[in-house]
Structures are given as structure tokens and as C-alpha cells.
């Protein structure tokens, strides 16, 4: 009896190891591909896939597994620019870099904070061709997945109206280093989709929406800019809504506004986490806010 248990255990372990090494091998392969492609410019990429790459394969999510939570306080070895001016956007949006002027022809105006597997950006891309959209994600492997996904999409749709040159992902801690990436009033939309709930009272400061972080978001958002929030955790919904409502630089948008807004519709269904909620027949709670002008100082 115990022998059998032992055996299956051992087997399980082997299988686990095998799966882990498969995932690693897959990611290594993608790594090489990514490195080869990442710095390739838009035009070069088109040449590389003349037949608009019908055989371009999208990366598979199951090879990029990672622990569900990460600690936003800890000091990961993160790479971030010293100032927003030092940020090399050309690397992320090669399609919008003007070789002649050495400048970007359009800038990041939409940010998906904690973008996870990137579904929201993919769905937003065709709706905002004139804005670059940036996903920020703290988990390495998840970020790599999104990178590979975008690379594949760009190759696959190189000839299409929406060629996904306007979306990109960046590994970073949005709670700590947002001001290193964005200038004052650079953004017009910020999305917070299904953020980690951090249930325990003690951990509430780890939440991505707190009254003090909201001041930073207000700094990078322009007047009239929108903060979108959606979650399946009612408690968290109330918490986010409360903090945004209490913050002097934000005002709540009403149901009528939500119903006519295109992004609300997209956000409701686009993200991987949102789809999971659908599968489990959970509810989704939305709250949107407008950045109002600074008061007299």
C-alpha cells in the first residue's frame, strides 16, 4: 500500500519536474525568439513575414506559470528609467519611432496597471490607434508571456489595419515607480482590472488603490482623464470606490456614463481574470472616475 503511494508520489514528482523543465525549455526557446525580434523594427518585421504569417503561433499561457501573488513592497531587481525623459519608448513601440527626428510619433496615453496576461490591451488596441497603450505587470513570467503574445500578434497582423504596434508591456512595480515612467498629465486613461484583493486588514496598504497612491495616479493623469476599476470582490470594489470618492482629485461617473462608454464594455469582457469570473458565474463590479482639476493652491 505504502509502496504504491510512494511510487505514485515519485511519479508525480517526476512528472512535475518534467512539466517544469518543459515549461522552462519552452520559455527558453521563446526567449531566444523574443531577443531576436524585440529590437527588429516594424518594417523589418513585415519583410520577415511576407505572407502575413498565417503560421505565426501565439504563445501558450500554461508555459508561463507563476505564483499568483507578489509583494509590492519588496525590492525586486527591477529595471526602471531614472526619469521619464530617460525612458526608451522606441524599444517598446518601434512602429512609432521616427528615425529622422529621433522622437516618438505618439506616446503612451493609456495604462493597464497589473495587466496580467494582457487581454485588455489586445482588445483596446484597435479602438485607440492614435494612443500607445502600456501594460504594467510585476510578475516576470507573466510579463514575458504578454511580450511574446504581442510579438506574435504584430507578426500575424502586420498587414492588417490594427497591427498591434500601439500596445506593449513592461515589467514594473506600478506602486513604486510610476513617476519614473510617466510625465505629469501624460495619461488619459488608467485601468485597474481585477487587482489583487489583499483581504487582510493588515495588508490593506498593499492594495493598488489607496488614498496616497491615488495622488500619484492623479499626477500622471491629465484633467478629464479616467480611472477605470473592475473587480469581482465586492469588498474591494467598495474599498476602491470609497477611496476614489474621498480623494479630492477624482469624481465618480454615473451608471449612464458607464453604459455609453466603449472602454467599460471592453473592460467587462476582455481580461483573462474577467473571463475566469464569467466561467465561475461570479459578479463584476465597476466604478469609474474622472480626474478633476486641481483646487486653488
Amino acid at each position, binding site marked *: 500500500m505504502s509502496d504504491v503511494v510512494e511510487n505514485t508520489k515519485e511519479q508525480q514528482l517526476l512528472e512535475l519536474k518534467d512539466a517544469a523543465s518543459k515549461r522552462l525549455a519552452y520559455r527558453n526557446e521563446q526567449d531566444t525568439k523574443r531577443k531576436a525580434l524585440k529590437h527588429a523594427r516594424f518594417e523589418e518585421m513585415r519583410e520577415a513575414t511576407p505572407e502575413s504569417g498565417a503560421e505565426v503561433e501565439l504563445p501558450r499561457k500554461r508555459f508561463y506559470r507563476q505564483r499568483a501573488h507578489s509583494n*509590492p*513592497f519588496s*525590492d525586486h*531587481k527591477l529595471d526602471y528609467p*531614472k*526619469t521619464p525623459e530617460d525612458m526608451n519608448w522606441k524599444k517598446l513601440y518601434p512602429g512609432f519611432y521616427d528615425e529622422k527626428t529621433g522622437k516618438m510619433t505618439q506616446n503612451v496615453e493609456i495604462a493597464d496597471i497589473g495587466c496580467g496576461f494582457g487581454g485588455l490591451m489586445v482588445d483596446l488596441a484597435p479602438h485607440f490607434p492614435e494612443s500607445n497603450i502600456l501594460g504594467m505587470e510585476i510578475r516576470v513570467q507573466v510579463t514575458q508571456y504578454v511580450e511574446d503574445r504581442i510579438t506574435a500578434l504584430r507578426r500575424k497582423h502586420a498587414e492588417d489595419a490594427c497591427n498591434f504596434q500601439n500596445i506593449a508591456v513592461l515589467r514594473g*512595480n506600478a*506602486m*513604486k*515607480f510610476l*513617476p*519614473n515612467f510617466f510625465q*505629469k498629465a501624460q495619461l488619459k486613461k488608467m485601468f485597474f482590472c481585477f487587482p489583487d484583493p489583499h483581504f487582510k486588514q493588515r495588508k490593506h*496598504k498593499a492594495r493598488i488603490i*489607496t*488614498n*496616497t*497612491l*491615488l*495622488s*500619484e495616479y*492623479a*499626477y500622471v493623469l491629465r484633467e478629464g482623464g479616467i480611472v477605470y476599476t473592475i473587480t469581482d470582490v465586492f469588498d474591494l470594489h467598495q474599498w476602491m470606490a470609497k477611496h476614489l470618492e*474621498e*480623494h*479630492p*482629485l477624482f469624481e465618480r461617473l454615473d451608471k449612464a456614463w458607464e453604459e455609453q462608454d466603449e472602454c467599460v464594455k471592453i473592460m467587462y469582457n476582455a481580461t483573462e481574470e474577467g473571463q475566469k469570473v464569467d466561467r465561475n458565474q461570479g459578479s463584476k463590479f465597476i466604478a469609474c472616475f474622472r480626474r478633476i482639476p*486641481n*483646487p486653488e*493652491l
Partner: protein
Amino acid sequence: MKHPFQLILSDKSGEHLFTSAKHHIQVFSTATGAIVGSWVDTVDIMEPLKKQQLKKIRALEAQHARDIKEAEAAAAAEPDAKKQKIEVKPIRIPKIPTPGPGAPPVYNFIRVLHLTADEKYLVGTTDSDKAIIMFELDFSQDNCLRLVKRQCLAKRPCAIASSEDSSQMIVGDKFGDVYNIGVTTPAVEDLKTFPQPILGHVSMLSDVVYAKHDGKEYVLTADRDEHVRVSHFPKSYVIKKWLFGHKEFVTNMLIPSWAPERLVTSGGDDFICSWDWTAETNNLLDTFSVRDLVLPFLSDYHIAPERFWTEEEAADRSLLEREITIQKILAVEKYKLLVVLAENTNALFVLNLADDGKITYNQTLTTDSQIITFSVDANARMYVGLDNKDGHLLDVYQFQSASDVEKLASTTMDQIAANSVVEVEKADDIYPLYHAAALRKRSEFS
């Protein structure tokens, strides 16, 4: 043996020295060396733990009571099992974790002392109950320190500034939050009802400065990452800008009184930054490298702890770098000078700060013992706290001009040391005196 002073702060006139050693605050007259004020933190450092413990026990008791009720209800609902004994787990009273023999000692000391601009209040921090303590100063009393407010915080306070009118204390804590705490309002007992922070970083706050420019008020905050932020005050939810330039933690910010648009910052970098903090863009005016100045005064103490060494470094120790931490920069207002202390060294570097923000070298002063801290008064007199085991705890210097500094032979300084009541039996009992270098962030897998 006298415990060295961990903090010293002089008033503008230089008549008084406010000092701390362990959990004692002592105020001395610089004319006579006499103690004119004192305060001891009598709150047991175990107090907060005991409170927590009590809460836990209460919660357990409540749970226990509920368990019994439930078990009784269940028994009542099942008549067949009537005779069965009702079994409920007894409560186990949790123990207060007492440090074992190998555990690091718990230190209880004053980490910050701040004088309000009008010198009406002395404000400090406690470790024991993580409080801000505010004293009204009255030198006509036997003890010039009258505690007017003691406000506990959820997280340990570690930086203090005050508003221009001295009515509000702006306090930064270990988790990066900044609170506005009134002097005259009663202390809030239940921390759940404590007002929200006025601003926050997601990193330990290392310094807070209040500033005024063009009739508008600001609060400047620095943290353990490399961020320096300028926010409006009291509407601190409106951020004016970040000042980018540091690569390591920032330990202090200084706005010189003769150039209120200038800001000098320093910390874990081997350079000092000089800014125009009021400008919309191009704030950084100068970076001044202190590397060559400081290196000759560093020792093996300044090498990273062994667990952070790379394999190559462990194999060849000559690869290990001595790390520079600027612990403090103060201004000599009268002669528009800066004085810089690198942590755990026996040197002070005097620098010039020109009107255009450029920093240049002036001279180096050295002492016989390592310097713990220092303070400068409005008459260009500088008080230097020494890490000394033979009772010589203070040196005094007088700036005679922008280029001429004289060390004074002062018997009152020795008198002050002799009058201090904070004693230890042996050198080992002296509290750790250098804390800034520990702010350096390290990665164990570099």
C-alpha cells in the same frame, strides 16, 4: 561609562543643546553645562506586545464562548447524543514572544529630534509605543521640557518637520506614510479613527522638510528608494513634481535659509545633489562627488555584510568596496557653507554653495574619534557629538569666516558630558550609533 549622545540639536542662539542617548532626552545649558531639562521614556518596550497579547486572548476567549454555545446547541439538537459530553477545546493562552539567548537585542531609543521654527516646541519619536512626543519649551521652569502630547502611530515614525506657524507636525513613518498632527488637538487613542495620511511613498520615509515659496506652502519627502517628491501643503494630494537624480536612498534634504529655492540632498550615493526645487524643469543644478574626499576615512566597517558578497568578492576581498553613506548635511547660515558628515568617519567636509547652486570644496575638519552627529547654531558655532569611551563626547568649533574654522577648548562641553545621567557598564552596552547605512537596499542574488 557615559553613553555617547545619539542626537544633538542646538537652538539658534546656541544657548541650549538638546540631546538624546538611549530613551533619555536631556537639555543642557551651553553656558554652564547644567541640565536644564530632561525626559525619560518610561513606557516599556514590551507594552505594545502586551497589548497585542491581550487582544489575542480576548478574541480567543470570545471564540471559546462561541464554541461552547455551538456545541451545546448541537447537543440539544441531537437528543440521542444527550449523554455525550460536550467537548470544546480549551484555550491556549499565547505567550508573548520573549527573545531567546541568541535573539538580537531590542533597542529603545529616540530616533529623531526636531525643533519648530519658533523654537516653542521640541518634537521627538519613541520606539516603545511608536509615538510622536511634543514638548513645550519653558526655560523659566526647573525642567524646560513639558510633554504636551504623545501620539502613538501604527508604524514607527522616522522623520519630522513642522509647519511655519509650528501648529502642525508633519511626520513620516517607516512604511512611507506622512501624517499631519496638530500640537494642541488631543491625542487620538483608537488608531482606527486616526486621520488618513496626507501623502505616502511605498518605501520607508527618510526625511521630511516643510518649505515655502512664492507664498505657497510645500512639503518635501525623501525615501529609501531614491525618490524625492515635492507636494503642496496642506493639500498634499496635489503633487508638484519628483526630483530625479539619486540612485540610492536619500537620508537628508536641506533648504538653506539664504537661498530658499535651493535644495541639497544626499544619502547612499557618493555624490551630493543641488537643486532648484521650485523650477518646473531642469531642477538639478549640480552633483558634487564626495568620493575622493570620503574614501580615505572609510574602514572595513563600510563594507557590505558578508551575506551579500559575491563569490568573486569572497574569494578576493580586495574586490570589496567600501560604501559611502552621507548621514547628515547642515548649513552654516552665516557664511553660506555646507558641512557634510559621512557615516562612521572622523571627518567633516566643509563645502561652498554658490548662488547658482554649484558646490565646491572648502576644507576638511578631522576629530580624534568617530563622529555620531552634529549641529550648527546661528552664530556659526558647531557642536560635534563623538563616539568616545573616555567621556569626551562633544567638540565645539567656531567658524570665524567662510574659510576660517577654529576648534574651541571648551570645558563646558566636558561638563555637559559629565552631567549626562545616561550611563552604561561597559562599551558593549552602548547602543548602535550608526543607522543610515542599513538603508541600502541589497539583493542577495545579484
